């Protein structure tokens, strides 16, 4: 593969600019470049080239002084992200520097950022689910938020388009609330998961326990290698077995010869031309030199991630748009959503002591939504629903700290006995779009580039708390009826952000008076600006969102290409 062209100084004018290189930005770049558009991808962080820049991918714990843990200095540098429990020595370089990138938590909100080429597509969980008609109809049916301007059928061909390229493994089941993707072979469940599946589906008709659907290759696909079951994904995968911009979309965009990448480029604002009634380009601050540049293009794709995209739009003021680009409705920055996190139950399974597994599967089981999917399953306590992720495993020596005993026998038992089977499920519930859950520009607290930061003011409300209560009850009941012992229920009462599925703040809608974007992700009143990351979401389903960002992006990019050809943009 040719090296990336990062010499953006040569040329200040492009056909298209893509702000951000993560999950959705990579797709925008690929679609636009493949259509022949000269495309500039702006990334605020550094370059990370596939494999070459995965320095820790083969580390073993004994190679590291602290065996994978991070010390106080790194904890300070990542003082926000460490709250998630995900930051370690082997992946810390893929998390943004929280000290250099402050934000204000008006109410507690965990905002995990990843500032590098590929963004959070290097760190994501790879759980990959289509949304259903139920999700796109939800707002219209129960009256929360505004109606989505699209339905499942509008997105279905684009789900197909991105799935066939990305490679999604899973099992087709024909569930209406969780439509099937085009699947590569599913990963296997272990003995206890199979046993719990059987019991759960018998005890609870209408509920299913399935293997997680994931963006990991279970067979070779499009020149990428299959998953080797190392479960070291968040260090970068040397086999390119999971979907990331770095391994998949950006190399494809680059192969066309139409891609220019500019790292260390913080987009300060989008430039709006009053006479033309459209955007002409973006202002960029070089994060290293502090210099400001302006790049021009016919179309601009905003893929900086939900809150960063909205931050840029709020900062893009003009006499036409004094409150932020396209913000006639006053909805820009509002209706922030996330999925509730860490409510569920765990316990142990007695049996199968003579069985174990081989390989470290970067996946678990999934229990699709079963509440409020038809009249029969309607709840009088809440609207919408939730799904569970979970799995079974044996703890190995990790069980030792809680075991009684020490000495010869104790030590040798930890080498020969992997400990009792453990099983857990943890829910992810849908969050309603509330106008008052919002982000605003904080002009008092500037970052090191003298730019306004974000103030985040959002919280879960009665419906989400009712969903969490049901999650807890259902989790305990299901584990009990499935023969799990020593059951412990948990509700960590995490605030918003822990789901790391932030959505909304520049929503799509039918009416420019109540939404920011139209049915093809164009800013209603500035049609050559497209927003296709999580900011565009009108509601947030209870399933993981990345696949939907990919599909929406590919769809919008192809609309942009066709409108450009027609001379409409």
């Amino acid at each position, binding site marked *: 593969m040719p090296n990336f062209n990062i010499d953006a100084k040569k040329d200040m004018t492009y056909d298209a600019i893509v702000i951000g290189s993560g999950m959705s930005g990579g797709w925008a770049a690929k679609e636009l470049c493949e259509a022949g558009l000269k495309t500039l991808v702006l990334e605020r962080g550094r370059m990370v080239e596939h494999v070459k820049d995965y320095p820790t991918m*083969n580390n073993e714990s004994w190679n590291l*002084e602290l065996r994978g843990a991070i010390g106080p200095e790194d904890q300070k540098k990542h003082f926000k992200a460490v709250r998630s429990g995900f930051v370690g020595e082997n992946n810390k370089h893929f998390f943004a520097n929280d000290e250099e990138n402050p934000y204000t938590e008006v109410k507690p909100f965990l905002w995990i950022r990843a500032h590098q080429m590929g963004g959070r597509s290097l760190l994501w969980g790879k759980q990959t689910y289509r949304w259903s008609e139920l999700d796109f109809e939800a707002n219209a049916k129960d009256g929360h938020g505004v109606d989505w301007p699209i339905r499942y059928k509008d997105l279905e061909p684009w789900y197909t388009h991105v799935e066939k390229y990305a490679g999604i493994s899973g099992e087709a089941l024909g569930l209406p609330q969780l439509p099937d993707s085009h699947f590569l072979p599913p990963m296997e469940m272990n003995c206890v998961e199979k046993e719990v599946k059987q019991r759960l589906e018998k005890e609870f008709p209408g509920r299913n326990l399935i293997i997680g659907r994931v963006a990991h290759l279970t067979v070779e696909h499009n020149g990428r290698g299959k998953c080797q*079951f190392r479960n070291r994904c968040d260090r970068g995968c040397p086999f390119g077995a999971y979907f990331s911009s770095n391994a998949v979309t950006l190399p494809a965009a680059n192969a066309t010869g139409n891609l220019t990448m500019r790292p260390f480029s913080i987009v300060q604002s989008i430039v709006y031309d009053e006479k033309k009634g459209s955007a002409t380009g973006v202002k960029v601050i070089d994060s290293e030199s502090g210099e400001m540049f302006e790049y021009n293009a016919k179309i601009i794709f905003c893929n900086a991630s939900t809150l960063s995209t909205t931050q840029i739009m709020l900062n893009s003021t003009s006499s036409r748009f004094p409150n932020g680009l396209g913000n006639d409705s006053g909805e820009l920055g509002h209706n922030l959503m996330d999925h509730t996190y860490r409510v569920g139950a765990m316990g142990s399974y007695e049996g199968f002591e003579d069985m174990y597994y081989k390989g470290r599967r970067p996946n678990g089981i999934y229990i699709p939504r079963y509440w409020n999917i038809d009249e029969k399953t309607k709840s009088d306590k809440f609207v919408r629903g939730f799904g569970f992720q979970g799995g079974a495993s044996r703890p190995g020596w990790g069980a030792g700290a809680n075991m009684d005993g020490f000495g010869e026998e104790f030590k040798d038992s930890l080498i020969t006995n992997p400990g009792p089977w453990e099983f857990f499920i943890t829910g992810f519930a849908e969050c309603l779009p509330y106008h008052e859950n919002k982000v605003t520009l904080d002009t008092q607290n500037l970052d090191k580039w003298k730019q306004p930061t974000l103030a985040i003011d959002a919280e879960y409300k009665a419906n989400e708390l009712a969903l969490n209560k049901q999650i807890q009850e259902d989790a305990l009941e299901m584990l009990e009826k499935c023969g799990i012992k020593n059951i412990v229920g948990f509700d960590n009462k995490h605030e918003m952000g822990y789901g790391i599925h932030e959505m909304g703040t520049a929503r799509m809608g039918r009416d420019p008076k109540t939404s920011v974007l139209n049915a093809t992700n164009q800013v209603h009143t500035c049609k050559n600006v497209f927003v296709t990351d999580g900011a565009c979401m009108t509601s947030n389903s209870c399933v993981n969102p990345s696949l939907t960002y990919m599909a929406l992006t590919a769809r919008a990019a192809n609309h942009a290409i066709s409108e450009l050809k027609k001379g409409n943009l």
Partner: protein
Amino acid sequence: MNRREAIKNTALFGGASILTGSLFSILQSCKSEPRLSWQPSFLKADQAQLISALVDTVLPKTATPGGLDMKVDIFMDTVFAKLYNAEGQKALLADMAQFDDRCKSKFSKPFAELDKAQRTEFLKTEEASSPKYNGKVWGTAVGEQKPVGFYRSMKSLMLWGYFSSEEVGLKVLNYDPVPGDYLGCVPMKEVGRVWSL
């Protein structure tokens, strides 16, 4: 996020952050100390002796290497020096002093100077009175964690140090860096020993 690698990560850090204890003045006997064969970077000599004695009692040498063979005590000293913040270090020393005070009031000797039977007797009492760790899901403990006390947090830390050491990781446990496949139901006797990674 890769929520699943985090299971592994945080299982390792079990003991690191949950130490508490009030401050105590530390009065230690200095006579008849066995000489340390290594230079601690955080612990004082008598404290290092206590840690070494603990490691040797919990993870003695058998047909497989012991904790001291794997320099687990030295690793623990490194963790105290580099992973603990100032507050954690202070709490650790206070907890350690209380542990040894209890030992001295029972046997009139610090833990490091007890014989094997006495060490066993003392650790059994300590173990019986120490709360356990909560379960963890993807990197975060579930529910509110009660302090587990000096003994259990040290046990957690030394297990991490032992099982993440090179010889144990490569040769004692079943090391399979690139499994290639996931097989969900494999007879334990075919795998033989607990997986290393």
